[in-house]
């Protein structure tokens, strides 16, 4: 199986730590990722609110390129937002003949291929769980994360809506109400995964700028739930949630207090750490919420 890697804009900007740690982890476990390096933005949630056709054309261009130029069998993305946009486009192309013909004529007009809505779309977390899995992670641990208490957070669009993610229907998908793929992978590193009932709650990230105070309240609810559950650190699989929970954290703490103060990292950074990779390579100094301090105190870096 040839895998195309669609990082998305965030991973080439603020979330470069996620990009680099994903590549390190993938390589370490023999997953070959071919970067679709001429990608464009998938349009996120903004395109679909602005213009329906456009919201299918942007992701379709990426998938057409992945299929036609890079000849991949599936495209994998570590971003919940991109995952949503791509799946949503495929669903529309398969269920709605008009959407399909719009996309096809657009691709033709701009001299691209003839993408039909049939590329398999995977989230990196889901793929990693299914293709590698906790057992192999356990066997590859060089530096156990024993003693580190982790809250495993997933966000929304990784599992919802099932109309497109097919959670509950497709066997390789996570449980939409009680996701556990990341929990098991993190537990395999030796870390203690705390019981945390906000794992699939919404961080409000989609409105992080438009509606700052509500968004901060939602984020604070998650951060403080993690802290209350006894976690030292919160791990997640999405750059957009990362922006809301990490980059915005100083502002959140200002309003909601220190209950909402907890270091935030990408799950791939922790797995990389357990594989014995360096904090520098994994860009563990990138997060604004300062994970280095607690990792140092636990003797992990």
């Amino acid at each position: 199986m040839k895998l195309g890697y669609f990082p998305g804009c965030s991973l080439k900007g603020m979330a470069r730590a996620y990009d680099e740690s994903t590549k390190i982890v993938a390589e370490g476990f023999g997953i070959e990722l071919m970067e679709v390096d001429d990608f464009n933005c998938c349009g996120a949630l903004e395109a679909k609110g602005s213009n329906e056709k456009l919201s299918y054309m942007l992701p379709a261009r990426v998938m057409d390129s992945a299929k036609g130029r890079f000849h991949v069998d599936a495209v994998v993305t570590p971003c919940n937002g991109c995952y949503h946009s791509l799946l949503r486009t495929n669903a529309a192309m398969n269920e709605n003949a008009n959407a399909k013909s719009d996309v096809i004529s657009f691709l033709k007009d701009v001299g691209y291929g003839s993408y039909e809505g049939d590329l398999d779309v995977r989230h990196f977390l889901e793929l990693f769980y299914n293709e590698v899995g906790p057992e192999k992670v356990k066997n590859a641990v060089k530096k156990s994360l024993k003693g580190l208490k982790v809250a495993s957070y997933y966000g929304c669009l990784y599992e919802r809506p099932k109309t497109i993610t097919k959670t509950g229907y497709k066997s390789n998908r996570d449980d939409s109400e009680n996701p556990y793929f990341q929990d098991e992978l993190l537990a395999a590193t030796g870390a203690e995964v705390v019981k945390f009932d906000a794992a699939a709650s919404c961080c409000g990230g989609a409105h992080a700028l438009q509606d700052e105070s509500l968004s901060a309240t939602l984020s604070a609810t998650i951060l403080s739930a993690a802290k209350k559950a006894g976690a030292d650190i919160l791990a997640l699989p999405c750059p957009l949630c990362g922006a809301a929970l990490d980059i915005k954290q100083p502002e959140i703490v200002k309003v909601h207090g220190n209950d909402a103060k907890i270091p935030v990292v990408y799950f791939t950074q922790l797995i990389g750490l357990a594989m014995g990779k360096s904090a520098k390579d994994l860009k563990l100094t990138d997060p604004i919420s300062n994970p280095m301090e607690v990792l140092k105190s636990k003797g992990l870096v």
Partner: protein
Amino acid sequence: MAENTDKMVIDGVELVGIWKEFMPSRILYEDVTTEFLDEVKKLPGGSTIARCYQCGTCTGGCTLPEFVDKFNPRGFINLVRRGHYDILVSDYKDLVWKCVSCNRCTHRCPKGVNTQEVVRAIAKFLEDRKVFGKLTNDEAFDEIFMDEVLTDGRIDEVKIVKDFYSKTGRLKDMMSGDQLSLGFKMFTSGRIKLFGGKIKDWKKVSQRLKEELQ
């Protein structure tokens, strides 16, 4: 309104006169129109609105009611469908747009309504009718975002943030301590950089996409 000069006592105070005039009627004078329903159906994401059978699964599991009083996706749909435009505007216009796109509603809707997109479409319907009297944050953000996507093919988060604050007249907030030091940290850590932008024929693609937006 019919005159009624009966006596009425409220909290021990006797009211005499045409009292019905200051007791608002609880009757809903319904003049059902599907005009608004038709309009929302045509907006991006609005097409599934008429499928709704008002079961309340969306509102039952929605993220927001806990934080935003009276937020109710089922209720918004109902108002649009029955043509209660005035109520939608007077009581709910500042709520509808608050949806955070968590998709719990669409995820569970038994009728295949894309509830999250329908709620966004209702907000857009209100925006299009200019009930807010100014550019909303959502409109501003969507415009900036789409503009950036169509121009460069990708987005640069820092530029988006800056443009957003500037468009909504809050640039000075951004220049305040926190935001600025954040930006500084990102620059020095090398995270803010302009990418090569080697998307094949982006000009052509962009041109075609812009036509779509017209």
